[in-house]
C-alpha cells in the first residue's frame, strides 16, 4: 500500500490537475451566468439560506497541509466529488439559460469521480464500498435552486483550490 506521502503516477496526476482546472472553469461559468441573469453575485448574501437549506460541505482533513495523507486524501476527494455530483443533480430544473453550464459541470465532475475511483482501485487504495451521496437538500423554489447554485458553485471552488494544492503536493517525489 501507498505510504502516507508517496507520490502519484505522473500521467494520472497531470490528468487530475487538468480536470480540476476544467471543473473550476465550468463552475466559474455557472457563477457568472447566475450573476448576470439573476444578480446573485455574492454567496455571502445567501449564507443564512444555505444554513436553512442544509447544503452539506465535504471534509478534507486528510488533504490539509498539516496532515497530508495520500490514501485518506484520495478517498476524501472522491467522496467530495460524489457529494457534489449529488448536489448538482439536486439543482436540476435551473432556468434554460443556465442548463448548459450546469450539464457541463455535472458531466465533468462525473468524469473526474470515475477517473479518481479507477486510479484508486489500481493503486489499491479504494475503499471496499464506494461512498454514497447521502441526504441532499430539497430546493423547493426556482429561487432556492438559483441560490443553491451560487452556494454549491462557490463551495466547489474552495474545495477545488484545496484539493489542487494537495494533489500538487503529491507530485513532488
Amino acid at each position, binding site marked *: 500500500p501507498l505510504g502516507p506521502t508517496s507520490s502519484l503516477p505522473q500521467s494520472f496526476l497531470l490528468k487530475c490537475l487538468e480536470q480540476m482546472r476544467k471543473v473550476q472553469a465550468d463552475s466559474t461559468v455557472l457563477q457568472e451566468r447566475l450573476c448576470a441573469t*439573476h*444578480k*446573485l453575485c455574492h454567496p455571502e*448574501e*445567501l*449564507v*443564512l*439560506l444555505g444554513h436553512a437549506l442544509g447544503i452539506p460541505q465535504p471534509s478534507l482533513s486528510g488533504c490539509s497541509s498539516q496532515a497530508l495523507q495520500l490514501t485518506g486524501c484520495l478517498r476524501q476527494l472522491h467522496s467530495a466529488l460524489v457529494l457534489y455530483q449529488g448536489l448538482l443533480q439536486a439543482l436540476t430544473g435551473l432556468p434554460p439559460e443556465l442548463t448548459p453550464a450546469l450539464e457541463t459541470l455535472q458531466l465533468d465532475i462525473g468524469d473526474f469521480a470515475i477517473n479518481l475511483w479507477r486510479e484508486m482501485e489500481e493503486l489499491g487504495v479504494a475503499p471496499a464500498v464506494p461512498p454514497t451521496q447521502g441526504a441532499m437538500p430539497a430546493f423547493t*423554489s426556482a*429561487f432556492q435552486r438559483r441560490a443553491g447554485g451560487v452556494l454549491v458553485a462557490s463551495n466547489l471552488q474552495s474545495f477545488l483550490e484545496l484539493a489542487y494544492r494537495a494533489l500538487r503536493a503529491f507530485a513532488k517525489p
Partner: protein
Amino acid sequence: ECGRISLPTPTVHLGDPITASCIISPNCSHLDPESQILWKLGTELQPGKRQRRLADGRQESTITVPHLNSPRVLLSCCVRWGTSLQILDQAEVQAGYPPTAPHDLSCLMNLTTNSLICRWEPGPDTHLSTHFTLKSFKSRGNCQTQEDSILDCVPNNGQNHCSIPRRHLLLYQNMGIWVEAENALGTNKSPQLCLIPMDVVKLEPPTLWALAPSPEVAPPQPGCLLLRWEPWKPSLYIEQKCELRHQPQLGETSWVLVGPLLSQTLQYELCGLLPSTAYALQMRCTRWPLPGQWSDWSPSLMLTTAQR
C-alpha cells in the same frame, strides 16, 4: 423555508405600480424571527415597506413599488444578519405592454417552395415575450363563413413570416388569414385577409437572351437589339404577360418600360435605342389575365447596339 415572496402577478404594465409581500417563517434556522425585513429592487434597497406580525407569529412585510419602469426587475426579500444583508427569496417581475394589432399582413404563393408565405409587421416592442401565430381557414365566398380551419402556422422564434405548406391549401379557393399576437398582458389580432392562393402567386423572373445573328436571323438595325426570352419553367402552365425595361449602362437616365409583352417570344426586335450604346435590359412577368403578383426583375442583360 426562510422567506417567501408573493406577487399578485409576475407581469405588469410598464409604469404601473406593483405590491409584493414577503413572509419570513420562525423556524428558519439561525434567523431571529423578529428580524426587520428589507427589500431590494435590483441591487437598490427599497424604502416604503410596512411590516406586521401575523396571528401565527410569522412576520409579513409588504411593499409597493410605485412605477415599474424597466422591463425586467429582480425583487429581493432580505434580512440583516450580523453585518451582512441576507437574501431569503427573490422574484422576477416583468413589465411591458400588451401586443398591438400586427399590421401590413401580405401573402405570396411561392411555387418554388410550394407554400403560401405570409409576412406582417409586428408593431412596437412590448418588452415581453410575445408569440405570433398565423391562423387561417378555408372558406367559400368571401371568407364570411369558416369551413374548416387550417393548422396554425407558428413562425420560427422572432421571425415575422410563416409558410403554409401546399397540402394545407386549396389553391383556387378563398381562405381567410390573420395573425394573432399574444403575451402575458393580452392578445391582439391583425385585420383578416381573404385571398385565393393562386391569385397571389409570385413567379420567378423570366430568362432573357440576346439573339445571335445567324443565317436565319438578320443582324439588328442600328439602335435596335435582337432578343428572346422564356418564362420561368415551373410556371409554363400559367398564362402570363411580361414587361421589359432598359436603360443605358452609363449615365443617370431612368428605365424605359416596354410592355405588355407575350410571356414567350423566339425573336423580338427592340428599337428606338441609341446606336453603339451599352444597355442594361431586365424583364419581369405576372400571371395574366388571371390575377397574380409581378415577379422580381430578371438579372440585367448587358447588350450594345450596333454602330450607325
